[in-house]
């Protein structure tokens, strides 16, 4: 099994930068697959001619595909110890085919929810260093600590 981007919950510290997840460049084929899998059939994401007709250079990625990348990242960070209890994303700049998204995270706060250790993470999806396409937060609750 390939190594996934994870970290033992007990090693998380406030303000700690988490290991990033680097995704392969987004492809037009991927946008078609995501459109089918998600049910979001807006042609802005799959039809270059349509995208040009409304003033774009060509198709752009679904915002929810980028949130899917952050979701992959968060679920990998949760590893076997934690569940994801809350997860949000604010959509910013567009992602186009060819853009490679890097998911980054930082520990915002460590606290407790119903007696269980919890962490709020700050998340960033960027298409180049400093070029954010979206930001978000996630709350992990550690219910299955590895002792």
């Amino acid at each position, binding site marked *: *099994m*390939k190594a996934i981007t994870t970290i033992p919950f007990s090693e998380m510290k406030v303000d700690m930068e988490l290991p990033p997840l680097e995704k392969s460049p987004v492809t037009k084929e991927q946008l078609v697959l995501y459109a089918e*899998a998600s049910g979001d059939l807006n042609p802005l994401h799959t039809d270059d001619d349509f995208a040009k007709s409304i003033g774009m250079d060509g198709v752009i990625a679904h915002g929810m595909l980028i949130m899917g*990348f952050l*979701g992959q990242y968060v679920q990998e960070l949760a590893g076997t*110890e934690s*569940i994801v209890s809350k997860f949000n994303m604010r*959509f910013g700049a567009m992602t186009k085919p060819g853009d490679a998204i890097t998911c980054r995270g930082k520990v915002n706060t460590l606290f407790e929810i119903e007696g269980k250790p919890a962490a709020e993470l700050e998340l960033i999806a960027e298409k180049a260093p400093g070029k954010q396409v979206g930001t978000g937060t996630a709350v992990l609750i550690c*219910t299955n600590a590895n002792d």
Partner: protein
Amino acid sequence: MDLDKSMIGIASEPYVAQIDPERVMKFAQAIGDDNPLYSDETYAADTAYQGITVPPTFLISLGSSAKFPLELDFRRMLHGEQEFIYHHPVRMGDTLDCTMKVTDVYDREGKSGTMQFLVLDTEMKKEDGTLAAVARNTIIYRPAPKEVRQL
């Protein structure tokens, strides 16, 4: 049509969403998310989820069949923010009873005039009535373009 506070509380007709393992795998593959938590029973059993569950954003794919008694102009709608609140893990084969509801309407001043925001919560309940998750969609409703106003 512009938005106003009286829309808060308007709900869709309830609809049912089935969690189909094949759709879950297609969704994970489209993202390139190969976490064994979505497919490997043995791996998943030892995680905090105690069994197979779905990718964190999978629930978004269940909403497209909502019948909503609001006439919104899709050309003015932008997906501003998405949130998921997970209460109980969603399992393969689950049947979820879903209802989408307007939970907030508010204004913000933006560069191109007043922007309106619409918050839509989709509650997803398991067959025994327990709340599995809430998907919260914040839509930015842009000012109507001039040519639309003239219609």
